[in-house]
Protein backbone atom coordinates (compact mmCIF):
# COMPACT_ATOMS: atom_id res chain seq x y z
CA UNK A 1 0.00 0.00 0.00
CA UNK A 2 2.49 2.57 1.21
CA UNK A 3 4.87 1.45 -1.47
CA UNK A 4 2.19 2.04 -4.08
CA UNK A 5 1.62 5.49 -2.66
CA UNK A 6 5.30 6.30 -3.03
CA UNK A 7 5.31 5.13 -6.61
CA UNK A 8 2.40 7.50 -7.01
CA UNK A 9 4.60 10.22 -5.56
CA UNK A 10 7.27 9.40 -8.11
CA UNK A 11 4.73 9.78 -10.92
CA UNK A 12 3.57 13.10 -9.44
CA UNK A 13 7.14 14.35 -9.48
CA UNK A 14 7.47 13.48 -13.15
CA UNK A 15 4.13 15.01 -14.08
CA UNK A 16 4.68 18.21 -12.10
CA UNK A 17 8.18 18.55 -13.53
CA UNK A 18 6.87 17.96 -17.04
CA UNK A 19 4.35 20.75 -16.72
CA UNK A 20 6.88 23.08 -15.12
CA UNK A 21 9.42 22.40 -17.84
CA UNK A 22 6.92 23.77 -20.36
CA UNK A 23 5.85 26.89 -18.51
CA UNK A 24 8.83 28.06 -16.45
CA UNK A 25 11.32 30.62 -17.77
CA UNK A 26 14.96 29.59 -18.15
CA UNK A 27 16.12 31.17 -14.90
CA UNK A 28 13.54 29.33 -12.82
CA UNK A 29 14.27 26.11 -14.64
CA UNK A 30 17.85 26.42 -13.53
CA UNK A 31 16.77 26.84 -9.92
CA UNK A 32 14.40 23.94 -10.24
CA UNK A 33 17.23 21.80 -11.56
CA UNK A 34 19.45 22.78 -8.66
CA UNK A 35 16.68 21.95 -6.23
CA UNK A 36 16.05 18.54 -7.78
CA UNK A 37 19.75 17.73 -7.53
CA UNK A 38 19.75 18.96 -3.92
CA UNK A 39 16.72 16.75 -3.23
CA UNK A 40 18.71 13.70 -4.23
CA UNK A 41 21.50 14.64 -1.87
CA UNK A 42 19.02 15.35 0.93
CA UNK A 43 17.19 12.05 0.44
CA UNK A 44 20.63 10.51 0.96
CA UNK A 45 21.18 12.56 4.09
CA UNK A 46 17.79 11.38 5.29
CA UNK A 47 19.08 7.82 5.28
CA UNK A 48 22.04 8.68 7.51
CA UNK A 49 20.30 11.24 9.71
CA UNK A 50 16.57 10.63 9.41
CA UNK A 51 16.76 6.84 9.67
CA UNK A 52 19.97 5.91 11.45
CA UNK A 53 20.33 9.15 13.42
CA UNK A 54 23.92 9.86 12.37
CA UNK A 55 24.33 13.63 12.65
CA UNK A 56 26.44 14.40 9.60
CA UNK A 57 27.75 17.90 8.94
CA UNK A 58 29.94 16.62 6.12
CA UNK A 59 27.41 15.56 3.52
CA UNK A 60 28.69 18.16 1.02
CA UNK A 61 32.09 16.44 1.07
CA UNK A 62 30.51 13.31 -0.41
CA UNK A 63 28.62 15.37 -2.97
CA UNK A 64 31.97 17.00 -3.79
CA UNK A 65 33.86 13.73 -3.95
CA UNK A 66 31.36 12.37 -6.44
CA UNK A 67 31.47 15.58 -8.46
CA UNK A 68 35.28 15.69 -8.55
CA UNK A 69 35.69 12.04 -9.51
CA UNK A 70 33.16 12.62 -12.27
CA UNK A 71 34.85 15.84 -13.40
CA UNK A 72 38.37 14.45 -13.35
CA UNK A 73 37.56 11.18 -15.05
CA UNK A 74 35.58 12.85 -17.83
CA UNK A 75 37.91 15.81 -18.49
CA UNK A 76 41.26 14.08 -17.88
CA UNK A 77 40.60 10.49 -18.80
CA UNK A 78 37.95 11.25 -21.40
CA UNK A 79 35.56 8.79 -19.82
CA UNK A 80 31.91 8.99 -20.86
CA UNK A 81 29.77 10.58 -18.12
CA UNK A 82 27.61 7.46 -18.19
CA UNK A 83 30.62 5.41 -17.11
CA UNK A 84 32.13 8.05 -14.86
CA UNK A 85 28.97 8.38 -12.80
CA UNK A 86 28.66 4.80 -11.53
CA UNK A 87 32.41 4.78 -10.90
CA UNK A 88 32.14 8.00 -8.88
CA UNK A 89 29.18 6.68 -6.89
CA UNK A 90 30.91 3.37 -6.12
CA UNK A 91 34.21 5.03 -5.20
CA UNK A 92 32.48 7.52 -2.90
CA UNK A 93 30.53 4.75 -1.17
CA UNK A 94 33.76 2.80 -0.70
CA UNK A 95 35.42 5.92 0.73
CA UNK A 96 32.45 6.33 3.12
CA UNK A 97 32.92 2.76 4.34
CA UNK A 98 36.65 3.33 4.91
CA UNK A 99 36.13 6.61 6.74
CA UNK A 100 33.02 5.32 8.51
CA UNK A 101 34.90 2.50 10.23
CA UNK A 102 36.75 4.86 12.59
CA UNK A 103 34.28 7.78 12.39
CA UNK A 104 31.11 5.95 13.36
CA UNK A 105 32.57 4.89 16.68
CA UNK A 106 31.75 8.46 17.64
CA UNK A 107 28.26 9.45 18.65
CA UNK A 108 26.10 12.57 18.63
CA UNK A 109 27.96 15.82 18.90
CA UNK A 110 31.35 14.17 18.48
CA UNK A 111 30.26 12.62 15.21
CA UNK A 112 28.81 15.95 14.06
CA UNK A 113 32.11 17.66 14.78
CA UNK A 114 34.17 14.92 13.14
CA UNK A 115 32.08 15.01 9.95
CA UNK A 116 32.41 18.80 9.92
CA UNK A 117 36.18 18.27 10.12
CA UNK A 118 35.95 15.82 7.23
CA UNK A 119 34.19 18.46 5.15
CA UNK A 120 36.77 21.12 5.97
CA UNK A 121 39.60 18.71 5.12
CA UNK A 122 37.93 17.87 1.83
CA UNK A 123 37.81 21.52 0.81
CA UNK A 124 41.45 22.00 1.84
CA UNK A 125 42.55 19.02 -0.24
CA UNK A 126 40.42 20.10 -3.22
CA UNK A 127 41.85 23.63 -3.00
CA UNK A 128 45.47 22.59 -2.76
CA UNK A 129 45.92 19.45 -4.82
CA UNK A 130 46.50 21.63 -7.87
CA UNK A 131 47.55 18.96 -10.39
CA UNK A 132 44.45 16.94 -9.71
CA UNK A 133 41.69 19.40 -8.89
CA UNK A 134 42.93 22.67 -10.34
CA UNK A 135 42.79 24.16 -6.84
CA UNK A 136 40.48 27.11 -6.32
CA UNK A 137 40.31 27.62 -10.09
CA UNK A 138 38.18 24.49 -10.19
CA UNK A 139 37.53 22.24 -13.15
CA UNK A 140 35.74 23.63 -16.19
CA UNK A 141 34.23 22.15 -19.33
CA UNK A 142 32.80 19.09 -17.68
CA UNK A 143 30.85 17.31 -20.40
CA UNK A 144 27.08 16.97 -20.28
CA UNK A 145 25.34 13.66 -20.41
CA UNK A 146 24.15 12.83 -23.88
CA UNK A 147 21.58 10.43 -25.27
CA UNK A 148 21.88 9.37 -28.91
CA UNK A 149 24.21 12.30 -29.65
CA UNK A 150 21.76 14.73 -28.11
CA UNK A 151 23.63 16.57 -25.36
CA UNK A 152 21.56 17.16 -22.23
CA UNK A 153 22.99 20.62 -21.83
CA UNK A 154 20.08 23.07 -21.85
CA UNK A 155 18.06 23.56 -18.68
CA UNK A 156 14.91 22.02 -20.13
CA UNK A 157 16.41 18.71 -21.13
CA UNK A 158 18.48 18.56 -17.96
CA UNK A 159 15.26 18.87 -15.97
CA UNK A 160 14.10 15.62 -17.50
CA UNK A 161 17.35 13.88 -16.62
CA UNK A 162 17.14 15.27 -13.09
CA UNK A 163 13.52 14.26 -12.65
CA UNK A 164 14.07 10.75 -13.94
CA UNK A 165 17.02 10.48 -11.55
CA UNK A 166 14.94 11.78 -8.66
CA UNK A 167 12.17 9.32 -9.45
CA UNK A 168 14.65 6.48 -9.50
CA UNK A 169 16.13 7.63 -6.21
CA UNK A 170 12.69 7.96 -4.60
CA UNK A 171 11.72 4.46 -5.70
CA UNK A 172 14.96 2.97 -4.36
CA UNK A 173 14.67 4.89 -1.09
CA UNK A 174 11.06 3.73 -0.69
CA UNK A 175 11.92 0.12 -1.35
CA UNK A 176 14.73 0.46 1.20
CA UNK A 177 12.43 2.11 3.74
CA UNK A 178 9.97 -0.77 3.63
CA UNK A 179 12.50 -3.56 3.57
CA UNK A 180 14.17 -5.40 6.43
CA UNK A 181 17.16 -3.08 6.02
CA UNK A 182 15.03 0.04 6.26
CA UNK A 183 13.35 -1.16 9.42
CA UNK A 184 16.71 -2.16 10.85
CA UNK A 185 18.16 1.29 10.09
CA UNK A 186 15.23 2.99 11.78
CA UNK A 187 15.41 0.67 14.77
CA UNK A 188 19.07 1.56 15.28
CA UNK A 189 18.21 5.21 15.69
CA UNK A 190 15.20 4.48 17.89
CA UNK A 191 17.10 2.27 20.29
CA UNK A 192 20.56 1.01 19.44
CA UNK A 193 20.76 -1.47 22.32
CA UNK A 194 17.36 -2.95 21.60
CA UNK A 195 18.31 -3.22 17.91
CA UNK A 196 21.50 -5.08 18.81
CA UNK A 197 19.30 -7.30 20.98
CA UNK A 198 17.40 -8.45 17.89
CA UNK A 199 20.60 -9.72 16.32
CA UNK A 200 21.34 -6.62 14.26
CA UNK A 201 25.02 -5.84 13.87
CA UNK A 202 24.48 -2.16 14.61
CA UNK A 203 28.05 -1.12 13.78
CA UNK A 204 27.87 -2.71 10.35
CA UNK A 205 24.43 -1.32 9.74
CA UNK A 206 25.49 2.22 10.58
CA UNK A 207 28.38 1.95 8.16
CA UNK A 208 26.01 0.60 5.53
CA UNK A 209 23.59 3.49 6.08
CA UNK A 210 26.44 5.98 5.95
CA UNK A 211 27.76 4.49 2.71
CA UNK A 212 24.31 4.45 1.15
CA UNK A 213 23.83 8.06 2.13
CA UNK A 214 27.21 8.93 0.60
CA UNK A 215 26.31 7.11 -2.61
CA UNK A 216 23.19 9.28 -2.95
CA UNK A 217 25.34 12.35 -2.32
CA UNK A 218 27.83 11.29 -4.98
CA UNK A 219 25.02 10.71 -7.45
CA UNK A 220 23.79 14.24 -6.77
CA UNK A 221 27.38 15.48 -7.15
CA UNK A 222 27.71 13.89 -10.59
CA UNK A 223 24.45 15.45 -11.74
CA UNK A 224 25.55 18.80 -10.33
CA UNK A 225 28.89 18.62 -12.16
CA UNK A 226 27.27 17.84 -15.48
CA UNK A 227 24.62 20.50 -14.91
CA UNK A 228 26.75 23.52 -14.04
CA UNK A 229 29.73 22.05 -15.96
CA UNK A 230 32.18 23.85 -13.71
CA UNK A 231 33.03 22.94 -10.13
CA UNK A 232 35.31 24.46 -7.54
CA UNK A 233 35.95 23.70 -3.87
CA UNK A 234 33.50 26.23 -2.45
CA UNK A 235 30.61 24.44 -4.12
CA UNK A 236 31.12 21.78 -1.46
CA UNK A 237 32.01 23.76 1.64
CA UNK A 238 30.60 22.85 5.03
CA UNK A 239 28.05 25.64 4.66
CA UNK A 240 26.41 23.43 2.04
CA UNK A 241 26.35 20.53 4.48
CA UNK A 242 24.55 22.68 6.99
CA UNK A 243 22.17 23.77 4.26
CA UNK A 244 21.39 20.12 3.40
CA UNK A 245 20.66 19.45 7.04
CA UNK A 246 18.41 22.54 7.20
CA UNK A 247 16.57 21.36 4.07
CA UNK A 248 15.94 18.00 5.69
CA UNK A 249 14.79 19.41 9.01
CA UNK A 250 12.61 22.15 7.49
CA UNK A 251 11.05 19.64 5.10
CA UNK A 252 10.61 16.88 7.65
CA UNK A 253 13.34 14.45 8.61
CA UNK A 254 12.61 10.77 8.35
CA UNK A 255 10.42 11.25 5.29
CA UNK A 256 11.22 11.28 1.59
CA UNK A 257 8.54 13.84 0.76
CA UNK A 258 9.93 16.12 3.45
CA UNK A 259 13.42 15.85 1.99
CA UNK A 260 12.11 16.97 -1.42
CA UNK A 261 9.90 19.78 -0.09
CA UNK A 262 12.70 21.17 2.07
CA UNK A 263 15.17 21.10 -0.80
CA UNK A 264 12.87 22.90 -3.19
CA UNK A 265 11.85 25.50 -0.62
CA UNK A 266 15.36 26.30 0.56
CA UNK A 267 16.69 26.51 -3.00
CA UNK A 268 14.05 28.98 -4.15
CA UNK A 269 13.70 31.00 -0.95
CA UNK A 270 17.12 32.71 -1.08
CA UNK A 271 16.45 33.70 -4.69
CA UNK A 272 13.03 35.15 -3.96
CA UNK A 273 14.48 37.02 -1.01
CA UNK A 274 17.60 38.14 -2.81
CA UNK A 275 16.61 41.80 -2.31
CA UNK A 276 17.23 41.31 1.41
CA UNK A 277 20.95 40.88 0.82
CA UNK A 278 22.77 39.56 3.87
CA UNK A 279 19.68 40.01 5.98
CA UNK A 280 18.46 36.81 4.34
CA UNK A 281 20.67 34.79 6.66
CA UNK A 282 18.90 36.25 9.67
CA UNK A 283 15.56 35.40 8.11
CA UNK A 284 16.80 31.93 7.27
CA UNK A 285 17.86 31.40 10.86
CA UNK A 286 14.47 32.60 12.06
CA UNK A 287 12.68 30.28 9.64
CA UNK A 288 14.61 27.22 10.80
CA UNK A 289 13.99 28.27 14.39
CA UNK A 290 10.25 28.68 13.83
CA UNK A 291 9.99 25.32 12.11
CA UNK A 292 11.88 23.58 14.91
CA UNK A 293 9.63 25.14 17.55
CA UNK A 294 6.22 25.05 15.89
CA UNK A 295 6.58 22.26 13.32
CA UNK A 296 8.98 19.75 14.88
CA UNK A 297 8.10 17.29 12.13
CA UNK A 298 8.90 19.83 9.38
CA UNK A 299 6.54 21.10 6.73
CA UNK A 300 5.27 17.57 6.09
CA UNK A 301 3.80 17.98 9.59
CA UNK A 302 1.41 20.57 8.13
CA UNK A 303 -0.56 17.69 6.68
CA UNK A 304 -2.22 17.03 9.99
CA UNK A 305 -3.84 20.46 9.82
CA UNK A 306 -5.27 19.60 6.44
CA UNK A 307 -6.69 16.20 7.28
CA UNK A 308 -6.96 14.44 10.62
CA UNK A 309 -3.74 12.76 11.76
CA UNK A 310 -3.18 9.68 9.64
CA UNK A 311 -1.29 6.63 10.70
CA UNK A 312 1.81 7.86 8.91
CA UNK A 313 1.55 11.20 10.70
CA UNK A 314 1.40 9.43 13.99
CA UNK A 315 4.58 7.56 13.30
CA UNK A 316 6.17 10.81 12.19
CA UNK A 317 5.13 12.39 15.47
CA UNK A 318 6.56 9.46 17.30
CA UNK A 319 9.78 10.19 15.46
CA UNK A 320 9.70 13.71 16.76
CA UNK A 321 9.25 12.48 20.29
CA UNK A 322 12.42 10.48 20.22
CA UNK A 323 14.46 13.27 18.69
CA UNK A 324 17.36 13.73 21.08
Amino acid at each position, binding site marked *: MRILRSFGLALCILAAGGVLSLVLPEYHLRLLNLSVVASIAVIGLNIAFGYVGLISLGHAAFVGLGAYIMAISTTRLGLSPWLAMPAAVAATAAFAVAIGLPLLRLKGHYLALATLGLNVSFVIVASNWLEMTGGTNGIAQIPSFSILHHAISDERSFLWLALVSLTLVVVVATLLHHSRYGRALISVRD*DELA*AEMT*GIDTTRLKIMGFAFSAAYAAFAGCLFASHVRFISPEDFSYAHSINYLAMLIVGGEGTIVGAILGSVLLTFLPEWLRFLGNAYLALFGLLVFLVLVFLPTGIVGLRKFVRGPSRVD*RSVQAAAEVRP
Partner: protein
Amino acid sequence: MTILDARNISKRYGGLAALTDVDMTVSAGEFVAIIGPNGAGKSTLLNVFTGLVVPDSGAVLLAGNDVTRHATNRRIKAGLGRTFQHGRTFPRLTVLENVMVGAAICPTLGERALRESALQIIEQMGLADIADNAIRTLSYGHRRMVELARAVACNPKVLLLDEPAAGLNSAEVAQLVKRLAHLREKHQLAVVLIEHNMGMVMRLAERIVVLNFGSKIAEGAPAEIQANPAVLSAYLGEGYAHARV
Protein backbone atom coordinates in the same frame (compact mmCIF):
# COMPACT_ATOMS: atom_id res chain seq x y z
CA MET B 1 21.67 -30.48 28.10
CA THR B 2 23.17 -27.19 29.27
CA ILE B 3 22.53 -24.29 26.92
CA LEU B 4 23.74 -21.33 28.92
CA ASP B 5 26.65 -21.75 31.27
CA ALA B 6 28.14 -18.83 33.22
CA ARG B 7 31.23 -19.58 35.27
CA ASN B 8 32.77 -17.53 38.06
CA ILE B 9 31.39 -14.24 36.83
CA SER B 10 32.74 -11.18 38.65
CA LYS B 11 32.13 -7.56 37.82
CA ARG B 12 33.10 -4.47 39.80
CA TYR B 13 32.02 -0.88 39.29
CA GLY B 14 34.72 1.10 41.03
CA GLY B 15 34.53 0.02 44.66
CA LEU B 16 31.19 -1.72 44.18
CA ALA B 17 31.10 -5.47 43.59
CA ALA B 18 28.08 -5.84 41.30
CA LEU B 19 28.78 -9.56 40.84
CA THR B 20 31.16 -11.79 42.78
CA ASP B 21 32.03 -15.25 41.52
CA VAL B 22 28.56 -16.11 40.29
CA ASP B 23 27.93 -19.49 38.61
CA MET B 24 24.74 -20.18 36.79
CA THR B 25 23.57 -22.74 34.24
CA VAL B 26 20.39 -23.08 32.24
CA SER B 27 19.37 -26.33 30.56
CA ALA B 28 17.34 -26.61 27.40
CA GLY B 29 13.67 -25.90 28.04
CA GLU B 30 14.21 -25.09 31.69
CA PHE B 31 12.50 -22.24 33.57
CA VAL B 32 14.86 -20.52 36.01
CA ALA B 33 14.04 -17.46 38.10
CA ILE B 34 16.55 -15.01 39.54
CA ILE B 35 15.37 -13.18 42.63
CA GLY B 36 17.02 -10.80 45.06
CA PRO B 37 16.72 -7.28 46.42
CA ASN B 38 17.23 -4.19 44.24
CA GLY B 39 20.89 -3.68 43.42
CA ALA B 40 21.70 -7.36 43.94
CA GLY B 41 23.22 -7.65 40.47
CA LYS B 42 20.39 -9.41 38.63
CA SER B 43 20.29 -7.08 35.62
CA THR B 44 24.06 -6.96 35.52
CA LEU B 45 24.10 -10.75 35.23
CA LEU B 46 21.77 -10.56 32.20
CA ASN B 47 24.05 -7.86 30.79
CA VAL B 48 26.98 -10.25 31.11
CA PHE B 49 24.99 -13.03 29.41
CA THR B 50 24.04 -10.76 26.52
CA GLY B 51 27.40 -9.02 26.16
CA LEU B 52 26.34 -5.52 27.19
CA VAL B 53 28.83 -5.84 30.04
CA VAL B 54 32.16 -7.63 29.81
CA PRO B 55 32.89 -9.36 33.12
CA ASP B 56 36.19 -8.70 34.92
CA SER B 57 36.64 -12.45 35.18
CA GLY B 58 34.71 -15.59 34.38
CA ALA B 59 33.30 -17.05 31.18
CA VAL B 60 29.96 -17.30 29.42
CA LEU B 61 29.32 -20.41 27.33
CA LEU B 62 26.44 -20.64 24.91
CA ALA B 63 25.69 -24.15 23.66
CA GLY B 64 29.23 -25.07 24.67
CA ASN B 65 30.95 -22.19 22.88
CA ASP B 66 32.80 -19.51 24.80
CA VAL B 67 31.07 -16.24 23.89
CA THR B 68 32.53 -14.10 26.69
CA ARG B 69 34.05 -11.68 24.17
CA HIS B 70 31.42 -11.95 21.45
CA ALA B 71 29.35 -8.96 20.39
CA THR B 72 25.73 -8.93 21.49
CA ASN B 73 24.29 -9.51 18.03
CA ARG B 74 26.33 -12.70 17.64
CA ARG B 75 24.97 -14.07 20.90
CA ILE B 76 21.44 -13.26 19.81
CA LYS B 77 22.02 -15.12 16.55
CA ALA B 78 23.40 -18.01 18.59
CA GLY B 79 20.15 -18.33 20.53
CA LEU B 80 19.79 -15.70 23.25
CA GLY B 81 16.78 -13.41 23.47
CA ARG B 82 16.14 -10.65 25.96
CA THR B 83 13.76 -7.98 27.17
CA PHE B 84 14.78 -4.99 29.27
CA GLN B 85 13.79 -3.95 32.76
CA HIS B 86 12.17 -0.72 31.57
CA GLY B 87 10.78 -1.96 28.27
CA ARG B 88 12.40 -0.94 25.00
CA THR B 89 10.51 -0.81 21.73
CA PHE B 90 11.13 1.08 18.47
CA PRO B 91 8.75 4.05 18.68
CA ARG B 92 8.93 5.02 15.00
CA LEU B 93 7.79 1.57 13.87
CA THR B 94 4.39 -0.06 14.24
CA VAL B 95 3.76 -3.11 16.40
CA LEU B 96 4.01 -5.38 13.37
CA GLU B 97 7.21 -3.71 12.18
CA ASN B 98 8.74 -4.02 15.65
CA VAL B 99 8.15 -7.75 15.60
CA MET B 100 9.35 -7.98 11.99
CA VAL B 101 12.69 -6.48 13.07
CA GLY B 102 13.00 -9.44 15.42
CA ALA B 103 11.89 -11.99 12.84
CA ALA B 104 14.46 -10.62 10.37
CA ILE B 105 17.09 -12.52 12.34
CA CYS B 106 16.36 -15.31 9.90
CA PRO B 107 18.29 -14.10 6.84
CA THR B 108 16.45 -16.20 4.30
CA LEU B 109 12.90 -14.98 4.97
CA GLY B 110 11.46 -12.76 2.25
CA GLU B 111 9.30 -9.75 3.05
CA ARG B 112 6.05 -11.71 2.88
CA ALA B 113 7.31 -14.62 4.98
CA LEU B 114 8.68 -12.15 7.53
CA ARG B 115 5.29 -10.55 7.81
CA GLU B 116 3.57 -13.92 8.15
CA SER B 117 5.83 -15.19 10.88
CA ALA B 118 5.63 -11.88 12.77
CA LEU B 119 1.84 -11.90 12.51
CA GLN B 120 1.74 -15.41 13.90
CA ILE B 121 3.65 -14.36 17.00
CA ILE B 122 1.55 -11.21 17.33
CA GLU B 123 -1.52 -13.40 17.28
CA GLN B 124 -0.12 -15.68 19.98
CA MET B 125 0.68 -12.69 22.16
CA GLY B 126 -2.84 -11.33 21.82
CA LEU B 127 -1.69 -8.22 19.96
CA ALA B 128 -3.51 -8.88 16.68
CA ASP B 129 -5.96 -5.98 17.17
CA ILE B 130 -3.20 -3.43 17.47
CA ALA B 131 -0.74 -4.88 14.93
CA ASP B 132 -0.80 -1.75 12.77
CA ASN B 133 -0.76 0.76 15.62
CA ALA B 134 2.10 3.11 16.31
CA ILE B 135 3.95 2.28 19.52
CA ARG B 136 3.20 5.78 20.83
CA THR B 137 -0.50 4.97 21.09
CA LEU B 138 -0.01 1.85 23.24
CA SER B 139 -0.34 1.35 26.98
CA TYR B 140 2.78 0.44 28.94
CA GLY B 141 1.53 -3.12 29.32
CA HIS B 142 1.08 -3.47 25.56
CA ARG B 143 4.52 -2.05 24.87
CA ARG B 144 6.06 -4.65 27.12
CA MET B 145 4.12 -7.34 25.28
CA VAL B 146 5.43 -6.00 21.98
CA GLU B 147 8.96 -6.17 23.31
CA LEU B 148 8.38 -9.76 24.42
CA ALA B 149 6.89 -10.64 21.04
CA ARG B 150 9.92 -9.13 19.32
CA ALA B 151 12.28 -11.18 21.49
CA VAL B 152 10.30 -14.35 20.74
CA ALA B 153 10.43 -13.54 17.02
CA CYS B 154 14.23 -13.79 17.23
CA ASN B 155 13.61 -17.49 17.81
CA PRO B 156 15.75 -17.82 20.96
CA LYS B 157 16.71 -21.00 22.74
CA VAL B 158 16.98 -19.06 25.98
CA LEU B 159 14.73 -16.10 26.70
CA LEU B 160 16.02 -13.66 29.33
CA LEU B 161 13.28 -11.51 30.91
CA ASP B 162 14.14 -8.61 33.19
CA GLU B 163 11.18 -7.88 35.49
CA PRO B 164 8.56 -8.29 32.75
CA ALA B 165 5.67 -7.84 35.20
CA ALA B 166 6.89 -4.56 36.68
CA GLY B 167 4.35 -1.83 36.00
CA LEU B 168 1.64 -4.23 34.78
CA ASN B 169 -1.77 -4.43 36.44
CA SER B 170 -2.89 -7.74 37.94
CA ALA B 171 -4.94 -8.75 34.90
CA GLU B 172 -1.95 -8.12 32.68
CA VAL B 173 0.29 -10.13 35.02
CA ALA B 174 -2.12 -13.06 34.89
CA GLN B 175 -2.11 -12.86 31.12
CA LEU B 176 1.68 -12.67 31.02
CA VAL B 177 1.94 -15.83 33.14
CA LYS B 178 -0.41 -17.62 30.77
CA ARG B 179 1.50 -16.45 27.70
CA LEU B 180 4.87 -17.42 29.12
CA ALA B 181 3.64 -20.91 29.96
CA HIS B 182 2.19 -21.21 26.48
CA LEU B 183 5.34 -19.91 24.77
CA ARG B 184 7.52 -22.42 26.58
CA GLU B 185 5.30 -25.26 25.59
CA LYS B 186 5.06 -24.16 21.99
CA HIS B 187 8.66 -23.16 21.29
CA GLN B 188 10.44 -25.43 23.80
CA LEU B 189 12.49 -22.48 24.97
CA ALA B 190 14.32 -22.04 28.22
CA VAL B 191 13.43 -18.95 30.24
CA VAL B 192 15.44 -16.95 32.74
CA LEU B 193 13.08 -14.69 34.65
CA ILE B 194 14.06 -11.83 36.94
CA GLU B 195 10.99 -10.96 38.95
CA HIS B 196 9.90 -9.49 42.27
CA ASN B 197 6.37 -10.82 41.91
CA MET B 198 6.82 -14.00 43.97
CA GLY B 199 3.41 -15.35 42.99
CA MET B 200 4.54 -15.36 39.39
CA VAL B 201 7.93 -16.85 40.23
CA MET B 202 6.45 -19.67 42.28
CA ARG B 203 3.94 -20.53 39.60
CA LEU B 204 6.44 -20.66 36.73
CA ALA B 205 9.94 -21.40 37.98
CA GLU B 206 11.42 -24.88 38.23
CA ARG B 207 14.54 -23.56 39.87
CA ILE B 208 15.35 -20.32 41.65
CA VAL B 209 18.68 -18.53 41.95
CA VAL B 210 18.96 -15.95 44.74
CA LEU B 211 21.40 -13.06 44.48
CA ASN B 212 22.31 -10.68 47.27
CA PHE B 213 25.01 -7.98 47.09
CA GLY B 214 26.36 -9.57 43.93
CA SER B 215 26.74 -13.08 45.33
CA LYS B 216 24.64 -16.16 44.86
CA ILE B 217 23.30 -17.00 48.32
CA ALA B 218 21.02 -19.86 47.39
CA GLU B 219 19.80 -22.00 44.52
CA GLY B 220 17.20 -24.70 44.34
CA ALA B 221 13.60 -25.74 43.79
CA PRO B 222 10.95 -23.16 44.77
CA ALA B 223 9.98 -25.09 47.91
CA GLU B 224 13.58 -25.21 49.12
CA ILE B 225 14.10 -21.52 48.48
CA GLN B 226 10.91 -20.61 50.32
CA ALA B 227 12.19 -22.41 53.36
CA ASN B 228 15.83 -21.25 53.16
CA PRO B 229 16.65 -19.11 56.21
CA ALA B 230 19.35 -17.09 54.41
CA VAL B 231 16.90 -16.17 51.64
CA LEU B 232 14.20 -15.33 54.13
CA SER B 233 16.38 -12.88 55.99
CA ALA B 234 17.96 -11.33 52.90
CA TYR B 235 14.96 -10.97 50.65
CA LEU B 236 11.66 -12.65 51.30
CA GLY B 237 11.37 -11.47 54.88
CA GLU B 238 10.85 -13.49 58.07
CA GLY B 239 7.09 -13.61 57.76
CA TYR B 240 7.20 -15.08 54.26
CA ALA B 241 7.56 -18.79 55.08
CA HIS B 242 4.15 -18.74 56.77
CA ALA B 243 2.32 -16.56 54.31
CA ARG B 244 1.31 -18.86 51.45
CA VAL B 245 1.28 -17.37 48.01
